[in-house]
């Protein structure tokens, strides 16, 4: 029994990692007022990019870098369309998803079914990794798992306790006020979207070069959409992203564990969305909750500089 629990928790942390990375990115973008529905496409492109680069060089770190770069690049396209051209963010995001899935399908075709020579290595922490139970659950993972946690804490700190965070949040809440204090609103928005894209690409890289070690189409399996829901579930807070990512990661694991026992995986697959609705409902019912829940005030709205 203990073995099963340890196994479930270990795999939960692993399954939550890509969700955590991409959700953190989406939170950064949305805090600046840009909705990015292209996460699924960005993750998928990140996954294929990382796979190809790792396959060619044998170095999964280079694969990760390439995936981050690709995510940044693709999301800057979304930024250009939404920020500079002020197009509809929903439409552009959906287009980005389709574009990303298309690109990754095309590029990944020759690599389907081929195993990766070198996967992302594990981080062994002497002493800690050997601990019974805890060591297995917490301290016996690959680098991505720890990087995600470090990045998450860093983003939480930056958003909450630095002037940079205040700038980011203000741009999403009231860009006019930010502009009147001399903030380059457009630049902040671009940087936020591109950061978000980079993290989505990194999440994809984890899937192909650490989690599975192979490439196949549909590798993201709807995780990009869970991320969009998760961002709301987390109430746009990095702390909430940790909770949500590992919770939803656990649901992912349970899908496989409970299937042999006759529990339909479809039932569990809908849990992330159901729980997001539930969060919206619970917070929506109380007045103070509504305030805490509310999305960045200008989320999805194009910003016109110096509008008269």
């Amino acid at each position: 029994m203990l073995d099963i629990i340890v196994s479930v928790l270990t795999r939960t942390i692993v399954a939550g990692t890509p969700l955590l990375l991409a959700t953190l990115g989406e939170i950064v973008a949305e805090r600046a007022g840009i909705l990015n529905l292209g996460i699924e496409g960005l993750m998928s492109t990140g996954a294929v990019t990382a796979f190809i680069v790792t396959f060619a060089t044998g170095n999964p770190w280079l694969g990760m870098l390439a995936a981050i770069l690709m995510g940044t690049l693709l999301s800057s396209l979304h930024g250009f369309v939404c920020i500079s051209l002020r197009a509809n963010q929903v439409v552009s995001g959906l287009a980005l998803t389709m574009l990303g899935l298309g690109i990754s399908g095309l590029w990944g075709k020759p690599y389907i079914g081929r195993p990766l020579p070198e996967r992302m290595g594990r981080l062994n922490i002497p002493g800690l990794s050997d601990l019974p139970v805890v060591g297995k659950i917490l301290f016996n993972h690959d680098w991505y798992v720890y990087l995600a946690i470090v990045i998450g804490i860093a983003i939480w700190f930056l958003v909450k306790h630095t002037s940079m965070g205040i700038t980011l949040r203000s741009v999403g809440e009231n860009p006019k006020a930010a502009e009147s204090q001399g903030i380059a609103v457009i630049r902040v928005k671009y940087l936020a979207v591109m950061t978000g894209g980079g993290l989505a690409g990194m999440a994809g890289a984890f899937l192909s070069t650490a989690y599975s070690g192979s490439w196949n189409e549909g590798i993201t399996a709807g995780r990009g959409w869970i991320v969009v829901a998760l961002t709301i579930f987390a109430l746009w807070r990095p702390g909430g992203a940790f909770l949500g990512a590992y919770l939803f990661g656990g649901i992912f694991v349970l899908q496989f564990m409970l299937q042999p026992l006759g529990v339909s995986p479809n039932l569990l697959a809908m849990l992330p969305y159901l729980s997001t609705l539930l969060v919206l409902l619970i917070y929506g019912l109380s007045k103070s909750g509504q305030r805490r829940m509310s999305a960045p005030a200008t989320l999805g709205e194009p910003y016109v500089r110096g509008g008269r």
Partner: protein
Amino acid sequence: MNRILCLEMRGISKSFVDVKANRDINLTISSGEILGLLGENGAGKTTLMNILYGLYRPDDGEILVNGEVVKLRNPKDSMRVGIGMIHQHFMLVEKHTVLENIALGYDEAPFFFPQRTLRKRIWELSAQYGLDVDPDKPIWELSAGEQQRVEIIKALSRKADLLIMDEPTSVLTPQETEELFDILRKMSSGGHSVILISHKLEEILNICNRVMVLRKGLLTGEARIEEVDKGKLAVMMIGRQIAAAYPKADINPGDVVLEVTGLDVDSDRGLPAVRHLSLQVHRHEILGIAGVSGNGQQELVETITGLRQPLSGSILMKGVPLDHADARKAHTLGITHVPEERIKYGIVPNLLLYENSVLKRHRDAPFSSWIQMNYGAIKDHAGKLVDSFQVDTPSINVRVKNLSGGNIQKLILGREISGGPELLVAAHPTYGLDVGATEYIRKQIIELRDSGGAVLLISEDLDELFMVCDRIAVMFEGRFMGQVTPESCTVEEIGLMMTGSTIQEE
């Protein structure tokens, strides 16, 4: 240790697409002075100050600080030389705390834990000027007066020597206004200078050392405060010459068309906007409503046209009550509406001209029968409107958004009055239009009156009201301060009523 001893704006001009907002304006202010900038809405006060704050660039003219020319390309430049501005609508992030708002874009705020370091600075400033706020409260929990204090602290923390305040008292209670004035006096005795934009004469007289008056983009007067009184200021603000009235058929007003009794209406913010107001409009009569905008005119218009629910009071249109906010019922009763925001509420910009020409009547014969639109009749109607109301358009098959403001307004007016309305409610019908379109629209309104219609005309343009109306009521804070006829009234009287003084009716 003030950096601005003397600031000068020389020959400032600024045009927007079709409006000259500022024409060759000179302004000087020196340390310790409180300068009042007086003028009606649209006189160009805010534009001038936005230029000074680096938000707009002037087409012409220069700005000098202590005798040296400075270039103010953006708010950062202005802040750097020591200019701070507090907008009418506060530039605050509602969900953030006072500290976070002050830290936003503040060069001296440290990267890590900026809130912690700023707290001390805020306390110092609070103590020095009596600016009492809780630095850890989110903005949405603060009253308007407290939010304004946050804005002042924000400006002072950035070492603003010259503070521009745009209509600072419009959101304040009388007590808060007094507190604000105390703060401003403290600041001026400490060597700060203040430019106060206002259209309230009493405030200007109360707090300022000097006053400048703008009208239609021009500087029309400048004086030390001891040299003027309310009457003089009113004349400067409104202008002396009134254009001659348009010729009108010599007809006495007929039966009562619209009768409003004891109307109370709240604004969107839940504050009383119209207070126990009564009025009557007759056949063959144009009743004008004068007043600085924001004194309940908009809410009054919306209530009469069935867009807003009154709290109490009655509206009788030819004896039939309009007791709910029901725009269709208002329409069927014969009330037509030329709305203030013509693009937003007067037309559907993306529909074609002929489709717009029958809005509200599209469901009536002959424009439709049962479920089918009769496009033949609609296009005929649109063609006739375009001809008889001189709408300048390549065809009736264009999207209305491509027409100019004047032509859109002619189309709206034509659509509204071509059905022979009992009552036309026109809000600022010539605002922002060129001379030709303005004259045409005024003449059409008079023609409607001559042919038996009743008109309620809301305008801020006193010239317009004097030229067109049979009677003028002056609205202030939701009430009528008095009713006059254009022939037997002076600009001074109207000006005083517009700023809240009543006059005895003979």
